[in-house]
């Protein structure tokens, strides 16, 4: 048996999504930019998908810009907002727990001579892995042109106080972007309630296909294009539309909107059972991130005395797929920047695993995982060098 508990990395395409996409890989192959009937069919399908995505996040369809995924949406938001600003000096505020699509983009801004403030994620309000909006306010400068704060963290699942930060950004008159790649389809999203100007989502995180995402751009918000070409996406993102992908994203958004309450409630129960059973059966195990402010499908746990890399491999060999952090960071030598920013010690961060559930997850999956994980942790702890254990065996609670 194999159990997949890494849905924050990616999800399978829902059968209904696949079914919706297939005609656009076959008979309906038209270019949405063409004048003729096959082109018009493709155009109509892209429009319908635009409506569906807009409905998922409470936006107008004209505010939806299709991209090649979350990373492109984040890059377009950051570099596009910076390029569109006419301020002579520019400053950006972000947080220490963002995805690398944001943090590495900000590194590039720094290389270009733009100031970036990376706000730490302190426990100022007693919430681990949650940014304090007051820290964002304190980082504001007259030259601040953009605030970028993720909605849900990919590793911890912690939900950030986007509404509060949105109010702060509105008061200051600063453009506000949120990377919602890990919250779309997991918690309700409303761009007006959140108060964002820009918002990124990615289809493959909620049972859509890979290679397609969205940047929501609020009417009146200026974003300079990163690509130059034809007039697709109202010049904001030229390039022939990925029609099958966009159709799949539209269908996935429709399903997410319809199934979200049911999925969320069911996955929360399964996630909580997985988490509490692991805490019960594995001595010194601890949850990373504030448990009350999380998406319902994610749990990050540390197992002091056992290395995350060995845990991940051993579990995979026994049929349980999970992750040590972000999918793109594996193989790197440093422990997760998110876990360190959330205040974990290096040892605890190195002994952490993320389990993330998805629509296909069943109670039997959780039973299987619970039958495997405690034994694997026990074996690895028993075979780990002594000093490593004593260095981190004391829970940091």
């Amino acid at each position, binding site marked *: 048996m*194999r159990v*997949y508990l*890494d849905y924050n*990395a990616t999800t399978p395409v829902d059968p209904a999504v696949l079914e919706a996409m297939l005609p656009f890989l076959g008979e309906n192959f038209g270019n949405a930019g063409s004048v003729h009937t096959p082109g018009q069919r493709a155009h109509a399908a892209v429009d319908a998908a635009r409506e569906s995505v807009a409905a998922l996040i409470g936006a107008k369809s004209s505010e939806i810009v299709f991209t090649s995924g979350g990373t492109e949406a984040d890059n377009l938001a950051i570099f596009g907002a910076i390029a569109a600003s006419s301020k002579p000096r520019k400053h950006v505020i972000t947080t*220490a727990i963002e995805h*690398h699509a944001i*943090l*590495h983009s*900000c*590194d590039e801004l*720094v290389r270009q001579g733009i*100031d*970036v*403030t*990376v706000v*730490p994620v302190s426990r100022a309000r007693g919430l681990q892995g949650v940014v304090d909006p007051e820290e964002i306010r304190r980082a504001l400068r007259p030259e601040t042109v953009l605030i970028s704060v993720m909605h849900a963290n990919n590793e911890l699942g912690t939900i950030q106080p986007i509404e509060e930060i949105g109010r702060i950004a509105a008061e200051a008159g600063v453009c506000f972007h949120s990377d919602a790649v890990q919250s779309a389809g997991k918690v309700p999203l409303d761009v007006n309630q959140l108060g964002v100007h820009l918002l990124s989502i990615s289809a493959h995180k909620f049972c859509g296909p890979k290679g397609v995402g969205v940047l929501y751009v609020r009417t009146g918000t200026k974003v300079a294009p990163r690509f130059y070409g034809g007039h697709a996406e109202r010049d904001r993102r030229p390039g022939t539309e990925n029609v099958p992908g966009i159709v799949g994203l539209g269908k996935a958004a429709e399903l997410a909107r319809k199934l979200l309450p049911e999925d969320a409630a069911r996955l929360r129960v399964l996630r909580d059972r997985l988490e509490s059973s692991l805490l019960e059966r594995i001595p010194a195990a601890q949850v990373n991130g504030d448990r009350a402010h999380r998406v319902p499908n994610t749990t990050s746990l540390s197992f002091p005395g*056992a*290395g995350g*890399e*060995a845990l*991940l*491999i*051993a579990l*995979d*060999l*026994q*049929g349980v*797929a999970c*992750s*040590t952090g972000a*999918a*793109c*960071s*594996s*193989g*790197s*030598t*440093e422990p997760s*920047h998110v876990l360190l920013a959330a205040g974990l010690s290096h040892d605890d961060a190195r002994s952490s695993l993320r389990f993330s559930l998805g629509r296909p997850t069943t109670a039997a999956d959780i039973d299987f995982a619970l039958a495997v994980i405690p034994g694997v942790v026990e*074996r*690895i702890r028993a*075979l*780990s*060098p002594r000093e490593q254990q004593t260095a981190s065996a004391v829970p940091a609670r």
Partner: protein
Amino acid sequence: MTPIAQLESVPGLGVAIDNSVTVVSTANAVAVAMSGGVDSSTVAAILRERGQPIVGLTMQLWNQRRLPQLQGEGPVQHRCCSLDDVYDARRVAEHFGIPFYVVNFERAFEQTVVRPFVEDYLAGRTPIPCTHCNNSVKFDELLATARQIGAPRIATGHYARVRHNPESGRYELLRAVDETKDQSYFLFGLTQEQLARTEFPLGELTKQEVREVARRLAVPVAEKPESQEICFVPSGSYVRFIESYMQEQGIELRDEPGDVVSTTGEVIGRHNGLRNYTVGQRRGLGLAAGHPVYVVALDRATNRLIVGEDRELRSTACEVRGVNWISFAAPDAPVRASVRIRHRHDPAEAEITPLDATSARISFLEPQRAITPGQAAVFYSGEQVLGGGWLK
């Protein structure tokens, strides 16, 4: 602002959900250390053909992008941890349907191999990083990880043999059948516990046979050229590597010129910094002595380079520290053995007198040329490696 670490997008852990890849839950799995080269790839192929449950592990040991000064010095592919080699190892594992993972030991590698290499060099010794890597990374960290993930044994592409002697109860290390490929010199530090959990499937084969097996089993990298140099040093220039590494650590190495003196103490020239020289070196001394002159010793304390004639390079006695005995526990009485003082050295007859559990004095029957501090002296008896230690 907080500086944001530049993380490399190294191909990471392959989390396969493909059900054609076997779930390994048996207790007798062997972890194969896969470098992406023909030898270790052939090991994987051989074990798989035997029906042995295996897991492929590739060690990420060194970040080739760390010292940008060295980029452009020699090819980055076919070196330690180049993306190409990780890619090749993964391709071989995919080809054979072997579960495969990249494990990151960059931290351990730097602490136990790279730093000691640099320190040795700066102290005037000539280090062998491959042996440190075997002792402290491959047969330590990697074996530990293998055991943790449920594979109690590891197999590597080394040319050497391991044999259990039921009479002594010891695991013995033997030379490879193919004398030209023998790597037993680099394995003298393995403990009984490590040897008990190690397999060297190539030790019984010649290089030619390995190539043939690789072709017969359709190993994807069968025709790949071998790498010879130290994996983390591009273009083989130790000095450039050490300078760049120290620069990264915030230390600017300056050449400290000093006197070149003869063995009788006579100043006969100037050198441009001791780290540019190694014992036994003849070329590049810039001396016109009328007869061949060699580096006999590096005197760090006085920053003097001591040179002399070939005969002055020869010595019958030396001491070793960090001695590891393999075929038997540390002896009380002197032991006769053939001793190899560098990888390609013809073993020379000697008597080894233990000084304590981990050090010994070696007396050669014939004087040996260029006994070099930092290299290993490995004790052989016929095809057996009795043990070995580090030359002081």
